[in-house]
């Protein structure tokens, strides 16, 4: 699964991302870091202009990683 592999990459480089991109949004596609964006809107716009839906990961760099509740 592409998203799982993209997520694996995120956690591989997470320490570095926390240092230089905390609270920003990263775009990962095909296990490659495509870009870092200040807003989700900008990340979505760039991702959607380049890649097919469902083939990319957008994740906010947060520390610690949140555990949400429902």
């Amino acid at each position: 699964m592409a998203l799982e592999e993209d997520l694996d990459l995120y956690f591989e480089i997470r320490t570095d991302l926390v240092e230089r991109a905390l609270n920003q949004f990263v775009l990962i596609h095909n296990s490659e870091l495509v870009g870092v964006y200040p807003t989700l809107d900008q990340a979505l716009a760039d991702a959607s202009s380049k890649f097919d839906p469902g083939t990319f990961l957008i994740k906010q760099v947060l520390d610690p990683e949140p555990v949400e509740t429902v």
Partner: protein
Amino acid sequence: MIATFPRRLRLGVDATAQPAAQPEVLRTRGAILQVRIGLPAAMVSGMEARGSTPPEPRALLAMIDTGASITAIAQGAAEAIGLVQTGAVQLGGIGGTGVKPIYAASLGFGDPSISPLDPIQIAGVDLPSTEFHVLIGRDVLKYLVLTYDGPRGVFALVPGGNAPPPSAGATFVGPAAPIAGAGDFGSLDVGEFPTALVVAGVGLALLNIFDVF
């Protein structure tokens, strides 16, 4: 049956409502309102630029859940709408913790004067209820003021004073409506988007914001 009302129509308390019926409806059903969910505008633009036709937003029923830190949508509804998964999140709850999909979306309310949240990231979950398909979590409520009037059986959702997305003065007031046909998530045209759903034959009170405050 879906009834469409103009904004700020003052209906007052329905005189035919049976005493204490509505508070019990609100208690058992919860604070349910209609929302409109679709792809975020940024994603729509990108897809159109690449020659794709993005799916239309859909009207869904949502329950306000102050126990949820993040807004969530039933997995089946997310797939039916055509939301795009953009990630995953660790999600905990009474049933334990697990990794759930995250979808990029836009979230609008029945009252068009409340600006949509666009974009927003919502979690895909298995919801046990068929009466609603969305849980409005605290990530959305942080922009709004929720008033829950248990004795009267009504609730109100209005923008907060320093809320960036919703516009000042916008209001949504919802009855504790037992919703018919809630298992369907059929789409509605924007022009007929109702401020509330009312089931015929059930005495419900629909209050204007000025009746509440």
